[in-house]
Structure formats: structure tokens, C-alpha cells
């Protein structure tokens, strides 16, 4: 790792000031950023640790919405009573990320800021039609994810929270990559106020995406069998040493069915 300066701002305003330089980066759980720095794939001059800024972590219910602070760890989300009550499928997703060490360090904000094409959270944010709250605006999920490792965030923009309207029901099924155990295919289904939404992570060349065919079929009938008639194309899906696009396309259907079956 190259030399880097570490900062722990006490307020969002301080953090913003520290992030003014192009070479400064937000640090949350460090579970993605630090390994890339060790491999010399990233070399920020300054790390601005946002985890202790008041209000950045924790879960609350506000106006019928679940508000999850950006620095809330996966383990907290997995075990939080409000999440378990209002969006149990999200708690279940968080409980399946990485291993206990990763879950106690990694954060929801870090995960969606990073937008790894194999990460779990992006599928939930997109399927639940969540809102990404930053230090300067609110971004709808449909506008937020813009391709693998690419988001609507501007340089220096800090995610502060994620807002979720509890769905009527939601479910997540993940097919873990046998080596990394990130999602090789993860499908999140949700019956939201805006209709049934289905988001697929792990499989797409451009990162997380919604699947129209699955959404249409499940809107007509929210049942596992409804998936049977849907055709999932391999076009635009990833092929790698763990599985080709055709296999991933097949898994999208299998995971979609399992997600619907698990929906609560």
C-alpha cells in the first residue's frame, strides 16, 4: 500500500471539506477499498472515514419508511428488529454477504457506492425502488445504478442513507460464486407500491438490472410457477470460468423462482 493520510471527520461538513481534493476518498468498512489499495489498484492520498459522523449509521423508521444510515454494517442490518419486521428479505440478504468478519465491517453505503456487479445490495435497492440519500440530494434507484462500478454519484458526493418503503412482500435468492461467494446470480423480487420489481445482480455485463419479462409475469401472478413461462436471454450476461452466459440465464430463472417462494 502506498502512503495515505487517514481522517476521521466529526461532521458531514468536515467530511465534505476533506473530500474537496480529487485524490481523497470516502472510507467506510474498507472491505473493498483497502484490498484494492494493498494491490496498488487504488492510490488515494487521503481517506475520509465517515463511519463516526453522527447519524451516519443505524436504522430508524420515519414516515412509514425504513431509513438505513450509510455506515450501517451488514451485520447490523441483518439483525435489526425494524429491518426484520418491515423488510425481512433485506435482513436475509445482508446475512448472506461474505463472512462474519466482512459483515461486521462492510457497510450498505460502501456496497452501493462501489456497485460491484456481483454485490448483493444493489439488487435490493433496485427491486425495492429505494432512494439513495446523499449529502446533496436524493436519487431514485432507477437513476442511481449506471453500469458496473458506475453510479450517479458525483466526485466527493457522500451517501448518507438509504430510504426504503416496505414492500408488500420481498424475497432474495443468491447463487454464490463457488470461489468468492459473491453473487454469481442474485435475484431480488419485491411487490412494491410501484408494482412487482425484479432486479438481477451478478449476471449482467453492465451490473445490476431489472428484468421486464420476469416483472410482467410476476405482476400477472406472484407465484414461483409464473417464472416458468418467461424466457431469459443470455445476451448481455457474463461468461467466465465459473459459468457461461447460458448457465447464468438459466440461474436467473431458478433464483427468481426461489426468491418468489421465499418472499415475505
Amino acid at each position, binding site marked *: 500500500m*502506498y502512503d495515505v493520510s487517514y481522517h476521521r471527520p466529526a461532521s458531514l461538513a468536515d467530511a465534505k471539506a476533506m473530500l474537496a481534493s480529487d485524490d481523497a476518498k470516502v472510507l467506510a468498512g474498507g472491505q473493498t477499498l483497502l484490498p484494492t489499495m494493498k494491490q496498488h489498484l487504488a492510490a488515494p492520498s487521503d481517506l475520509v472515514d465517515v463511519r463516526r459522523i453522527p447519524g451516519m449509521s443505524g436504522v430508524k423508521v420515519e414516515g412509514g419508511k425504513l431509513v438505513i444510515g450509510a455506515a450501517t454494517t451488514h451485520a447490523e442490518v441483518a439483525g435489526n428488529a425494524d429491518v426484520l419486521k418491515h423488510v425481512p428479505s433485506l435482513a436475509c440478504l445482508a446475512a448472506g454477504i461474505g463472512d462474519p468478519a466482512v459483515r461486521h465491517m462492510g457497510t450498505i453505503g460502501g456496497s452501493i457506492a462501489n456497485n460491484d456487479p456481483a454485490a448483493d445490495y444493489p439488487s435490493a435497492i433496485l427491486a425495492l425502488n429505494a432512494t439513495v440519500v446523499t449529502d446533496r440530494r436524493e436519487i431514485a434507484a432507477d437513476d442511481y445504478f449506471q453500469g458496473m462500478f458506475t453510479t450517479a454519484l458525483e466526485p466527493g458526493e457522500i451517501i448518507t442513507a438509504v430510504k426504503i418503503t416496505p414492500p408488500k412482500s420481498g424475497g432474495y435468492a443468491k447463487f454464490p460464486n463457488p*470461489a*468468492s461467494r459473491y453473487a454469481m446470480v442474485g435475484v431480488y423480487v419485491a411487490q412494491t407500491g410501484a408494482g412487482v420489481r425484479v432486479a438481477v445482480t451478478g449476471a449482467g455485463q453492465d451490473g445490476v438490472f431489472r428484468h421486464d419479462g420476469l416483472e410482467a409475469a410476476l405482476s400477472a401472478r406472484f407465484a414461483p410457477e409464473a417464472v416458468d413461462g418467461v424466457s431469459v436471454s443470455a445476451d448481455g450476461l457474463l461468461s467466465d*470460468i*465459473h459459468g457461461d452466459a447460458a*448457465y447464468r440465464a438459466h440461474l436467473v430463472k431458478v433464483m427468481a423462482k426461489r426468491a418468489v417462494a421465499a418472499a415475505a
Partner: protein
Amino acid sequence: MSDGIGARVKRKEDKRFITGKGKYTDDIRMENQAYAAFVRSPHAHAKVKGIDASAAEAMEGVVAVLTGAQLTGDGIGNLICGWAINSKDGSPMNMGPWSALATDRVRYVGDAVAVVIADSQKLARNAAEAVVVDYEELPAVAHADRALAKGAPQVHDNAPGNLIYDWGIGDDAATQAALKGSAHVTELHVTNNRLSPNPMEPRSAVATYDEAEDHYTLYTTSQNPHVARLVLSAFYNVAPEHKLRVIAPDVGGGFGSKIYIYPEEITCLWASMKTKRSVKWTSDRTEAFMTDAHGRDHITTAKMGFDKDGKITGFHVDTVANFGAYMSLFSSAVPTYLYATLLSGQYDIHNIYCNVRAVYTNTVPVDAYRGAGRPEACYLIERMMETAAREMGMDPAELRRRNFIQSFPHQTPVIMNYDSGDFPGNLDKALKAADIAGFPARKAEAAKRGKLRGIGYSCYIEACGIAPSAAVGSLGAGVGLWESAEVRVNPVGTIEILTGSHSHGQGHETTFAQIVSDRFGVPIDNVSIVHGDTDKVQMGMGTYGSRSGAVGMSAIVKAMDKVEAKVKKIAAHVLEASEDDIVIEGGEVKVAGTDRKMAWHEVGLAAYTAHNLPAGMEPGLKEGAFYDPVNFTFPAGAYIAEVEVDPDTGVTKIVQFTAADDFGTIINPNIVEGQVHGGVAQGIGQAILEQVVYDEGGQLLTGSYMDYAMPRADDVPFYTIEHNTTVCPNNPLGIKGCGEAGAIGAPPAVINAITDAIGTNDLQMPATPARVWAALNAARAPMAAE
């Protein structure tokens, strides 16, 4: 004696390991220590046209940037393969030059061209990135079959067609004839997937040059420090043996990968002389994937013939073995004398022929990895047997029974002479423990849950206790494979055992003490084991090939024989009895049938005070011995895997795994079971998870755990372990060895179970979900078309 042979005592070494007090090479800190970072080729094959180190040399904390030209200029020798194999036509193997730092050409991704020595690891790594190497890329070839194709890129100029040797064993014509006359012939094409060894502790070296004494000390992660010293002295010209001390302190796993002396260790020694600094290097995990010798990587086509009663008539095998870019230390022996000589398996086969072509590719060198050759042989035979049974509509257990060797000694047509065993007994024990009768019900129950349940067998045999020196010498080995030991009884009666074996996870500090305790009746806490230091231990060949018990312990027994003889003489003299009446029992040395006795420590004291010794006897109580085995040992067993495949995803869950092993005498069941657990886990890893992948151009695609799938706890089941012991007749303790069995026996059992579940024999390792799903679809397709 409660601590003796067969006792389930806890491992003495675990306190320091579990409390983080182990002392590994990277824990060694020398005064004035500098750090090495290697400049490695990003290309699989390229000419090195120039190296510009000026920017790196100017960086803060950089002590030196050293290159291959300087290294060869100082007379450091090329790395060698120490086992000479001739081709069928009598020509010697084509060994290409391998310099510790490449001079003019790099041949795999990770091949080192220069080394930076700096004041810290960080500075060294940063400076290594600043070294500019001018490469001219050359076409590369990564896969063995492509390397043999016409027009393939040439890895070494002196190995035309990339062929290292074209070797054969057995009778080709007789085997072909036997196949022709067979009632049934089974043919299979199998690949044995390339594996990365992944010891928990990566390789590391700390080299120190003492200018005043012109002497070197190397701390390193070695399974055989004396062999390292020998090779570094005799072949790499680092220093003569008496000017080089090699210490392998605690070593965190090896699995074969730490047998070899690698470029990095050689370079650190040389660099310590060049810079007059201690030089430390510790591999990171990516470097380990790139540069540790890989294992396996065979492509094989084989035919096995059967008569109408299911008796094997002949076995014909054609194997291509990928050696990587250079010939590693024992590479040549692995797909020949450690593979083809085991192709008779547990079966009475009269006609066997095996052809092996060893080829260069632009990949990291391949050498012995847990099992080394024997897993490849076992996988082939046992997939053959299961496939043949299915094709002939026979119970696979019955087909094996009809072919089992039943009497010993048994001479196979491929060199090995099996000394003992009970193959039907192993299988019976496994079948019973696996509740074979209940399988149909379990399968039906699984089907209700939508799962495909399958069962697979594997009856493995291996050759361990490597090896009789004269025998391996006649086959081309450059070394003898005996072992040595020294037993030092101190004046207070405590005992030190100095052994040439090396423990890197095997628990020698416990088991070696147990055999001493068993013999002399002293508690194991009064016995300490000294190993891994060429200045302390007289000589040794190290640990691999499950040889520490069968060979290493035998040397200790021989030395204990000498100690016992002297103890009896001393006691007879002091107690005024006849030597023949002296017995050693419960920590006492007694005159049989009387109450006259000396405590064990009193004999020790008597030996060293030397006030009252028999006339002419030298003082002291310390004896050494060398033990050269008369034969290999032959652990064997029967493994049964039961799996459930999810047809929707292709995921395999191993739901039951039964091992019935014959390891000969067991010193400590706890440690033996641990070896089986670890070995089977590695075997399961090979069967369903692990695989090194290079793309066509020789880029390593599995350079981290993001892509290289290691077995995790939830990938393996709880094991059922049985023992069916027949004692080895050829060594004093009757030991056969247990270190590799699991890795050898498990893969075919697992694949046989999966192919049983999915109803097709067409499946290669690793049986990843994607592959199993594809195989299922291929198997279903004809049915869909009907």
C-alpha cells in the same frame, strides 16, 4: 504406557500454534534486515531486451536492484530437476535452462527478472514497480495438448515440439493384444485438473551472509532443509555445505510445494552476499498462486479390457503431463515412477502399458502435490472401474471384488511389489459403515425433495514410505531416500530425538515422542523432537510421500535399538546381572523376576558420570542411525461418497463420506484421523472446486481466492472413518503411512457418485455446478429428442 503407540494423545505442539506463539520464517527478524521484492514478468512468454533500474535505484531506501545477468555472472547455477528420465528411444530428457532470475527470456507470468532490495517491504515493492523492463512478447502456449500440436510456440530451444520426454512402461503389444481379445473394453478420456497447493503459510526466506566467516544462514519454509542445503551447495553454487546453514522453523503446511528450492530462496542468499544485509522475502498470496509449483495437470486417454466374467484383461494408458515452463526438482518422477507404477491399483492385472509425454508450456512449473502421481493413477483406475461396471451392468463393488489382489507379496507388471493388504476387507468395512443397504431408500427420499442422490466408490492404493535408495537410484533419482535419527538420552533421563524428517503440520513432536515413550517408558513430556536445522540434525531427507512414519520413525527405532543395548549393558553392570535378564518397563530398568532395578534417569546419570561403566565402554548415552527402507509401503483403502445433486442448479452436496483405510500400525489415531480429514477435504476440493486456469495466452485467471475455489467447512461433510489394519511387514513398527490417502482416494469416489446421480459418465473435474448442469442437460438431450 498411556502415551505410547496407539494412544490418542493431544498434540504437544498445538499450545504454541493455538496461542499464536509459533515461530515461522516471517517471524524471524535479523539485525540490519532488508527486504526483497521481485520484478516479475507480466507476459507468459517474452524476450527480455533490457532492464532499466535507474529510477528504482534512485528511490528512497533502495539498497540494490539486482538482475539475472549479475546472478549468472557470479556463478550461481541454473535450477535443476534431480531425477533423470529417459525417453523410450533411450534419449535423455530435454531439460531447458532455468536461471533464478531470467536473463534473456521469460517463460511464464511471474517469472522473475530482477530483485529490488530495500529497507522495508513497502519500499522494495514500490521500487520494483519502477523497474522498467523492455519485453518483446512472444507467442505463448499454456495447455499441454496444444503445446504438442504442430506449430505451437516453442518454450525451450532444446526441447523440440515442447517434448521433455516420451516415456513408456509395461508391454505395449501384449496389452493391445489383450484388449483385442476382451469381451468388453471401457474407454475414457479424463483430465486431472491443475491445482495450486495453498499452504496456509506462504513461502518465505531470510538469508544472512556473515562476511567474517564467509558463511550463510537461510531460514526458509522447507519440508527438507538438508536437501535444500545439498542442492544450494552442489548445484546452485551458493556456498559449500559447511558454509551454509539451512533452518526450517515452524512451517505452516507444504503439501509438496515446499520440497523444492525456488528462485526466490536462491536469490535471497546471493543478494545477502551482494548487499551485506540480511535479506527477507515473504510471498503474498497472489505470488503464491503465480510461483508455487502447481500439481497434477494430466490429460489421459485409457482403455481397460474385461473378460466375460469381469476380470480385467489389460489396461492401456496414454498420458500427457504439463510440466510448465521449467523442470522443477522432482517433476520428472511424478508422472512416471509415482504414477504409472501404481496403475495396477488394487487389482490383479497382467497386462499394463502406459505412455507418458511430458511437455513444456508457458505456465508455472508443475511438481509433486499431496499424493503426487498417485492421485492421477487412482482417479483414472477408479473411474474406469466404476464406468466399466455401469457399462457391463455389474455392481461396482462386485466388479472390484472379482479383480482384487488376494495374496501377498504381489508383483505387478509395473515395478511395484505389494507387501500386504486386505482389499476385500477394506471394501466390506466401508460398505457396512456407509449403510449401503439403506441407499435405495435414501435415494428415493432425496428424489421426493427433487434431489438426485448418487453413490460412488474408490478403492485406492498408493506407494509411500519413499523410498529404497537403491531402487530409486536404478530408476534415475539423484538422491537416496533413507532417513536418519539420533537419540540423545540426557544425564537426567530426558530424551532428545534429532530427526531428518520435518514437521509442517504432521505432529511429529507428538508421534515421534510417543514411540520413544512406548519403548523406554518415559512420559512424552520428557521427550523433545529436534528437526529442521542443518546445524543440529546430522542429515535428513525430509518429509513428503508419507515417509516420516515409515522411514523417519524407523530410523529412530534403529537408534533406540542401540540405546537400549547400551542401557542394558550399563544396568547389567551396575545391578550385577546378566544383560539378557534386563528389561525396560514403566520407566525402570529391571532385572527380570527380581526387585533389583534402576530408575531410567539413574541409567542416564550412570552413563554420563562414567564412574562405574563396564570395562572399555565409552561414556554417554547417545546413538545415531540411518534407515534405508527395503520397499515402498502400500497404504490402501476403500472410500464411498454419497452426494445429492440439485438438478436445477447443478450444485453437488456431499452428504456422506466413508473412509476405510489400511495404514498399517497407527501411532496416534487423533493425528491419523486429522490427516484423513485434511486429505479428503483436499480431494473433495479437487473433485468439485479447485482448478488453476490459464487462458490461451498463458495469463493466470485464478490468481486469488476470488476465482480459485478452496473447500470451506460447509463444502465437506462429517466423515465416517474406519481402519482395517494389516501391519506392514517391511519396517520395524509396521507403519504404512497416511498423509496422502485422502487426497488420492477421494476424487474418484466423489466423481463416481456425481456421475451415478446424473446418469452420465461424461464429466471432468472439477465438477462445478456449471459443469454438472451442462452434463445433466447433455444427458437429458437425447431423451428430449425421443
